[in-house]
C-alpha cells in the first residue's frame, strides 16, 4: 500500500467520510459519495421496538459498520477490526498503531468528544472518526463531519471509545491491511445500485424500504391520539435523524444523488443515471419541505395537522419509488 501525507477532508457522513479518507491515504482515491454508493448504504428503516433516549430508531442508511463491511466485500479492501475488553489495552493498541505510522479509524460516542459543539453533544454511540497522529497526550483527529482537523485529549477519547449502551463501541479500532490500487468500478456500481433499488422496493418486512416510510407515515397519523408533548418530540426526532446526524441533507438522499451523478460520468454520461440523480435531488427537496412542515408544527400553538404531514411522507415514498424503478432500468442495460 502506498502512503501519502494525511489529508483531512470535510464529509457529510462519519463512516463513509472515514473510509474515503482512509482509502485515499493508502492510494485508492474514492470520493465520499462513491464509497457510500458502492457500499449500498442508502436505505430506510423504522424500528419502533428499538428505543434510543425513549425514541424509536429511524435510519436513512444501513446499519453502523455496514460500510466498513461492504467495501471489503465489494472492493476487495481488507480491513482489520479490533475491539477491547478493557480500556488500558485499547489505549495501548491505539498508541502502538499510531507509532507504526498507521492512521486508525475508531468508533466513539459523540457526547464525550470535547470538540463537539455543546448543543450537539448527545449520547449517540456509533460515531466514526480517524486518528492520524499523537503529540504528548493529545490525539490529532480527522473527524469527517468537521471542516478542519480536531484535537482530543487522551482521557476524553478513551471515554468516548468505551461508552456503553445501544451500539456500544467497545473501543473499536480499524485500519486497512490491503487496499487495491486500481479498481474497475463500473460492474460494482451496477451491482450496488441494484441492491439498493431492490431492497427499497421489495423488502418484505413492513419496517424497511418504502414500506417503512409508509409505516412511519401511519405512525404519524396515530400521534393524534397521543400526548401532544410526546407527539411533538416524536416529529422532531424524525427530522433530527433525517438532518442532524451528518446525512449530507435530506437523510442521505442528496449524498446518494451525488453518487449517481458521479457514476453517470463513468458510463459516458448515462442519461438514465443522470435522470435518476435529478429525481433523487427532487425527492431530497421534498424531504426538506417535510422537515420544514414539522419544524413549523413544533413551534406553532395551533393544532398539528398530522394527516397533512403523514400524507407528505407518503407522497415522498411514491416519488422515491420512481427513482428506484429508473435505477433498475439503468441496471438492466448493463
Amino acid at each position, binding site marked *: 500500500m502506498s502512503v501519502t501525507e494525511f489529508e483531512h477532508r470535510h464529509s457529510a457522513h462519519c463512516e463513509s467520510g472515514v473510509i474515503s479518507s482512509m482509502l485515499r491515504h493508502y492510494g485508492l482515491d474514492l470520493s465520499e459519495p462513491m464509497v457510500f454508493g458502492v457500499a449500498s448504504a442508502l436505505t430506510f428503516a423504522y424500528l419502533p421496538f428499538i428505543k434510543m433516549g425513549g425514541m424509536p430508531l429511524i435510519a436513512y442508511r444501513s446499519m453502523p459498520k455496514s460500510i466498513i463491511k461492504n467495501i471489503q466485500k465489494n472492493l476487495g479492501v481488507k480491513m482489520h477490526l479490533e475491539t477491547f475488553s478493557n480500556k488500558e489495552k485499547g489505549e495501548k493498541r491505539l498508541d502502538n498503531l499510531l507509532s507504526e505510522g498507521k492512521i486508525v479509524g475508531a468508533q466513539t460516542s459523540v457526547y464525550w468528544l470535547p470538540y463537539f459543539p455543546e448543543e450537539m453533544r448527545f449520547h449517540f454511540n456509533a460515531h466514526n472518526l480517524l486518528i492520524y497522529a499523537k503529540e504528548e497526550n493529545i490525539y490529532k483527529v480527522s473527524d469527517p463531519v468537521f471542516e478542519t482537523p480536531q484535537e482530543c485529549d487522551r482521557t476524553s477519547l478513551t471515554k468516548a471509545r468505551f*461508552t456503553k449502551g445501544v451500539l456500544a463501541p467497545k473501543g473499536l479500532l480499524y485500519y486497512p491491511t490491503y487496499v487495491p490500487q486500481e479498481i474497475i468500478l463500473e460492474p460494482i456500481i451496477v451491482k450496488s445500485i441494484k441492491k439498493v433499488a431492490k431492497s427499497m422496493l421489495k423488502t418484505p418486512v413492513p419496517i424497511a424500504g418504502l414500506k417503512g416510510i409508509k409505516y412511519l407515515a401511519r405512525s404519524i397519523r396515530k400521534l393524534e391520539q397521543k400526548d401532544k408533548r410526546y407527539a411533538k418530540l416524536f416529529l422532531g426526532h424524525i427530522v433530527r435523524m433525517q438532518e442532524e446526524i451528518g446525512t449530507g441533507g435530506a437523510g442521505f438522499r442528496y449524498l446518494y444523488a451525488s453518487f449517481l451523478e458521479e457514476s453517470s460520468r463513468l458510463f459516458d454520461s448515462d442519461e438514465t443515471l443522470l435522470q435518476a440523480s435529478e429525481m433523487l435531488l427532487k425527492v431530497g427537496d421534498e424531504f426538506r419541505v417535510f422537515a420544514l412542515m414539522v419544524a413549523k408544527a413544533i413551534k406553532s400553538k395551533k393544532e398539528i395537522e398530522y394527516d397533512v404531514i403523514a400524507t407528505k411522507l407518503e407522497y415522498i415514498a411514491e416519488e422515491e419509488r420512481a427513482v428506484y424503478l429508473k435505477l433498475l432500468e439503468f441496471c438492466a442495460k448493463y
Partner: protein
Amino acid sequence: MEINGVPQDDSSTYANNKKAIYAKDEDGSVKIVGSSGWSAEEIVTKQALEDFLEHELEAYCEVKRGLKSPLYYHMYSIRMDLQLLADSTGFFKWSVKRDFKPEVFAKISEKRLSIYAEVMGIDTKQLKVVQEKNYECN
C-alpha cells in the same frame, strides 16, 4: 437542492462550525457545500435540548424537596436517562432506581458511587451534591 439554495442560517447549534451538505452546482455536478446552519434543523435540535433541560430542572426541584437523590439530577444534567445509566454502569435498572431514593443514596457504597462517577464523568464528591441553581421551584 442547488448550491445557492443551501441554507446559511448561522445556527447556534453549529457553534460556528459548518456542516457538509451535497447540492447541485451550475455545471451539474453534485458536491459538498459548507452550511452554517438551517433554521428547521435548529428548531428540532433545540427542542431535544429543551426537553433535557426540563427534565434537569424538574429533577433539580425534586432533589431540593428531598424526593430524589442528587444522582437523579446528575443523570439528566449529562443528558442521560435511566436506561442509558443502567446500561453504562452495568447495574440493574431497578437498582439504579433505588439509588434515586435519597435515603438509599445516602448509604451508597464507595465502590458503587465511584462506578457512577466514572461513567458520568464527574468525581464522587460532585455526585453527592447538587449545586444551587438560579431557578425558582414552585
